[in-house]
């Protein structure tokens, strides 16, 4: 039990590190790789939880995360990047040091908000604060980077945060039917977003979402 707790705490910390690296990253392929690593850590946490609780259905969740988020979605996104061939650099709203500072603040906020609820964590500690931090920094990533594909990645990290919270506070994860529903929704969402990104790229000859600014009032 104790080792399991330590392992989970360690991996939650690593997830946070990966998230911070992602906010400072401008190269899309690297960001996609970081997302895959983050999802791998999430799958590992689920597997540890499944092992220590003898909850076989959480193994399925870990397997799905591995197949979907570590292999399939990064592959899909990479293919999209190659197909639309982006060469231009889009300046993020904040430069790297400033965004690091902001994310540090958001992490602090995540810890403050999660503090009254940390007693809920059954295994490991710091998972709930990390989950909330993923949520907050995901939102920041969404605002900071105006590339359509980066926004898709931001959305996926937010979703990772929610899944981490589910593992952290609900002792055996969610019921399997719910996990399956969420999993397929995420897959379909990325496909739909991919179609839209492709069409935006064709129509605007760019992926800069700040060019989507005609509708007002």
């Amino acid at each position, binding site marked *: 039990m104790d080792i399991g707790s330590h392992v989970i705490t360690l991996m939650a910390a690593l997830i946070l590190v990966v998230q911070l690296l992602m906010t400072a990253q401008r190269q899309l392929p690297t960001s996609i790789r970081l997302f895959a690593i983050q999802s791998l850590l999430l799958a590992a946490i689920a597997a540890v939880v499944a092992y220590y609780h003898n*909850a076989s*259905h959480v193994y399925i969740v870990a397997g799905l995360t591995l197949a979907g988020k570590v292999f399939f979605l990064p592959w899909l996104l990479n293919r999209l990047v190659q197909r639309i061939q982006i060469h231009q650099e889009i300046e993020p709203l904040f430069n790297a040091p400033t965004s690091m500072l902001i994310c540090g603040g958001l992490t602090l906020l995540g810890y403050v908000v999660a503090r*009254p*609820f940390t007693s*809920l964590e*059954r295994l490991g500690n710091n998972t709930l604060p990390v989950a909330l931090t993923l*949520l907050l920094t995901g*939102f920041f990533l*969404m605002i900071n980077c105006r590339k*359509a594909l980066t*926004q898709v990645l931001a*959305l996926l990290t*937010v*979703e990772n*945060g*929610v899944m981490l*919270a*589910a593992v952290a*506070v*609900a*002792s*055996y994860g*969610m*019921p399997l*039917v*719910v996990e399956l*529903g*969420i999993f*397929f*929704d995420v897959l*379909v*969402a990325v496909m*739909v*977003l991919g*179609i*839209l990104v492709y*069409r*935006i790229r064709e*129509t*605007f000859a760019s992926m800069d*979402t700040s060019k*989507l*600014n*005609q*509708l007002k*009032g």
Partner: protein
Amino acid sequence: MLLLTPILIVPLLAGLLCLTVRAPRVMAALGVLAFGVTLGLGLALVRQVLARGVVTEWRGFLSADALSAWMVLLISTVSLATSLYAGRYFERDVAAGAVTPGRVREFFVLTPLFGAGMFLVVLANNLGVMWAAVEGTALSSVLLVALYNRRTSLEAAWKYVILGSLGLALALMGTVFVYAAACKRNPDSLPSFNWSYMMSVAGQLDPRLLKLAFVFALIGYGTKAGLAPMHTWLPDAHSEAPSPTSAMLSGVSLKIALYALLRFHILTTACLHSDFSRGFLLGFGLFSMFLAAPFILVQKNLKRMLAYSSLEHVGLICTGFALNSPVTIFGALLHMGYHALTKPVLFFAAGNIHQTFHSLEFRVIGPGVMKVLPVTAIAMALAGLAAIGLPPFGLFLSELTILSGGLASHQTTVSALILVALLASFCGILQQLARLLLGARKTGGPASDARHPDGVPAMALLLGGLLLFSVWLPAPLLALLHQAADLIGGRS
């Protein structure tokens, strides 16, 4: 006899069948058929619910109470009218070269799936499945919003999907916290996540967790329901989508998100026995109403104005629930129904106008639409008068019910605020539509359209229903609404 299963399966099958047929006419007919069947099943469901209280299937995976049955009727009616209208609408669009036949097929495949998703939201017993279904409706409607593939419609679709998904991620967080509360209650097993189970143990759940869950759900589902200030996607998506889709989004989709929020509201109130969630609903509802009015007054685009009017109505419905007297909740439920019969007519008429004038800007279309498209203009005028709440239309009745209920339960300030907001948008819509429809034509522009006008069956169906139910509410429907109101008010 199975009722809930076919309600889910029929539209799903219709959508998949549309993949195999070629003729748009057949696809439209399939849509009409599917939602006609679900409407019939919905009526049968109302009878069952009145007889037995709660109808469950698949060992409680699907469950329908009075509130769900009422939503099933709304979804079926609006989707039926939309399918009736869409066939001819897209024939004209294809003829004009505005869309390709492939995109039309996309519409006829995705619309029944959108409908099936909404049915699953209201019939799912499990709160997590309900969340997944709401996300499903968002995903199936995104490509519908982007159907025309114009720059502006892509922009609208992008905002819709990004804001919608972010919102729903928060709603999922809320859902997780509710489940965490259930796990905390019995830590050694995997508790059920069914709504019926959660309600039965509501008193023993951790109130702090439920509070946190409600706030997340409010922001999340509130975004999808278009509550201000999370409404910014709403006017864009509603104005850029093809008119049949706008009718679905505005007529039912907003209310489906509100339904999901209501489930959290009921659960939170049952747990806390306090006004915690009510206060939030009240604030967001009133804010939406007040935000909508000025935007209606200065609006230059017809469908954007209609979208802001929907924002106002959703705000009013939300406020009606928040006032929390049996009368206001009943009024809010009634308002949902009347609004579902009214708003699609306005969007259908706007669709006809768009196809004739090739624009939605007031200065390009008006004045004097009455002289060019008499039937469309009359339908729009009637539905417009209904939407601003003039008698004899039902929205007058439901608004009056909410106001009188508010006054009777001594919530005078809120009732006065509602009245002010209603009056402001009343003036706005009346002035805008009068300028658009009446008056002399400018020279130039399309000549009087002598052809048989489009979309008459759909508009006649909804307006006829509106007039009929404005003067006569059948006893079973009344009983159903009272039962649903008791459920929301925590009196059952």
